[in-house]
């Protein structure tokens, strides 16, 4: 009985007693959800346009952030460094297309998936070789990102909103909206969707696969850079981010691999639910539940909807 009370009644009593804490938690969950969604967005872009599950997205985030910080440390002013990083991400996209994707054309998905693993290892080694393995501070102030916090006195309490979090949410929304627009209404977007449907059919109507791949990987690189800046501004730039990137997987599962709005909704659901669970139910089982809660949520959703909440249902024929 006691246990049932602790599980089903007590958390809600706590929520009612301290509404400011609840609002703060909701806000934190929302922000981490946005960041998960940004990482997931990079995955979805590449998956949509080439059918490759890009495991290297996580390390691309780290690599982009490290490049930016590294260039700044080398004496280049912040904004030119940002521009230069974008150029480097373009170079990376071209290199990946030439050296990895082009030779592996028409190979099974699992092979491409494994190739992105190889890419991950390579980039980890390369990044550490160039910039060292230690953690770094993101150059938040130099990039003219807002700092500090807004304190809201509501509900008889105090809710603190970090300005950088607000900026992250705004930037994420803008990116998502523009990507959705590009995918839906432009010529390139149509070509991207055609390539996703069938490489061969797209080639036959004159779409250049190589060009599309470079564009997609470059877009994913820019998304990675934005993610890296935001995430780096919230904590710091380190290779540990790569594990955080795995959290994008349950987000993708919830949203479906092919849906951009799905990635956003999935990110928000995961971010909110894991923060709430950790605060109110986590202490019952020893805490630290953020490590696995997202995956279990994804597992439960999958049991009822095997293609995620927004994914396309795949019809199998013999």
């Amino acid at each position: 009985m006691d246990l049932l009370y602790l599980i089903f009644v007590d958390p809600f009593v706590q929520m009612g007693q301290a509404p400011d804490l609840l609002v703060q938690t909701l806000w934190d969950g929302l922000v981490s959800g946005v960041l998960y969604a940004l990482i997931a967005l990079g995955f979805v872009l590449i998956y949509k346009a080439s059918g490759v599950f890009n495991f290297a997205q996580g390390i691309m985030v780290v690599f982009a952030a490290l490049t930016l910080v590294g260039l700044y440390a080398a004496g280049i002013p912040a904004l030119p460094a940002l521009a230069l990083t974008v150029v480097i991400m373009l170079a990376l996209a071209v290199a990946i297309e030439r050296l990895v994707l082009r030779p592996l054309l028409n190979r099974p998905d699992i092979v491409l998936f494994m190739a992105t693993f190889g890419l991950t290892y390579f980039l980890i080694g390369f990044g550490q070789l160039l910039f060292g393995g230690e953690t770094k501070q993101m150059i938040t102030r130099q990039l003219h990102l807002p700092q500090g916090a807004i304190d809201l006195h509501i509900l008889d309490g105090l809710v603190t909103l970090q300005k950088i979090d607000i900026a992250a949410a705004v930037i994420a929304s803008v990116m998502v909206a523009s990507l959705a627009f590009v995918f839906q209404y432009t010529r390139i977007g149509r070509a991207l969707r055609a390539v996703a449907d069938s490489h061969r059919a797209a080639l036959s109507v004159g779409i250049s696969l190589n060009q599309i791949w470079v564009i997609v990987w470059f877009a994913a690189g820019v998304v990675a850079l934005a993610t890296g800046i935001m995430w780096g501004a919230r904590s710091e730039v380190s290779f540990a981010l790569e594990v955080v990137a795995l959290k994008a997987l349950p987000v993708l599962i919830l949203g479906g691999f092919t849906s951009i709005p799905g990635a956003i909704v999935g990110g928000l659901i995961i971010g909110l639910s894991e923060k709430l669970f950790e605060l109110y139910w986590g202490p019952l089982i020893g805490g630290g539940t953020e490590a696995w809660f997202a995956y279990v949520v994804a597992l439960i959703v999958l049991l009822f909807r095997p293609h995620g909440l927004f994914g396309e249902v795949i019809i199998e024929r013999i």
Partner: protein
Amino acid sequence: MLYREVGQYHASYRTDTAIFPIRQDRVGMLVILAVAFIIVPVFGNSFLLDVVAIPFLIYALATIGLNLLTGYTGLLSLGTGGLMGIGAYTCYKLATWFPGVDIIVWILAGGVTAAAIGALFGVPSLRIKGFYLLVATLAAQFFLQWAFERVPWLYNNNVSGDIEVPTRTLLGLPVTGPNATPATRYEVTLCIVVVLTVLASHLVHSRVGRSWMAVRDMDIAAELIGIPLLPTKLLSFAVSSYISGVAGAMLVFLWYGSAEASVFSIDLSFTILFMTIIGGLGSLLGSFLGAALIHMLPIALRNVLPGIGLDLRPATVEHLNLMIVGALIIFFLVVEPLGLARLWQTIKQKLRVWPFPY
């Protein structure tokens, strides 16, 4: 010419369907076994045994476990690390409860819990496929690792949170713990690996293995020809998890000596998945080749790079190492996407017709 099979007739089904139908293969296998059982432990130093041979065998066993699931049944999994942990922690608990019983029994028993838990996490596989299943197994991986850290009962409430391997003897010889010689641990490891490999080989050549492969090739079609999907997939999960569990128990008891929860992290799962795919999906030989390549390559690079006159800091060597491993993975995928096992088949074919082109 070198690999002639002319004159080797198969007069019965028994010889025709043998695992090694060609005499050269049988002889070669015996030579390899003789080298592994006698030459390596007699002439190998503790570096060769402890750093190269024992880890290679344990990784190979874990890779076989995953290969049964991923290569033969077509179900992707990233839960191997967690399941290996289950094997290790079960073995540890059993060995502390019953100190008198032979440790080999507990290493083999460690896999049983892993099999049960693996089958439990395999239940969703009936509805979930491909990358979606990957996430389901990730849930297992992260949940299990969390449990290893947060449930003190599992590590006997140690202050350090590690599991320490006690000294246990087999026929008077210490097999585990600090007093066991590398040679003894190597021989025990080798025996377990050989026995389980033979069992796995018989399994995949049997009715069970054929039904796994049918499910892998197309599960709806397999169901239509009368293969019950859920029992087949669950059996695959259970057998694969059993082997992973045994490998995990061996990892701690015969190699590491003590371990904390982070040993069984997602990285271990990735390593094993790498070995499986680089070696060749659906090939037991490939499991060994993949484990050998991924495990020994960094060791070789670490020793070779400073050797050829490049004077580098150890950290730089590590970074170069990662880069080279990553580049090689891509290279192998480009050159031979079906893995090292296929490479060996190509070489065999070349040897068969040598010195003529065809």
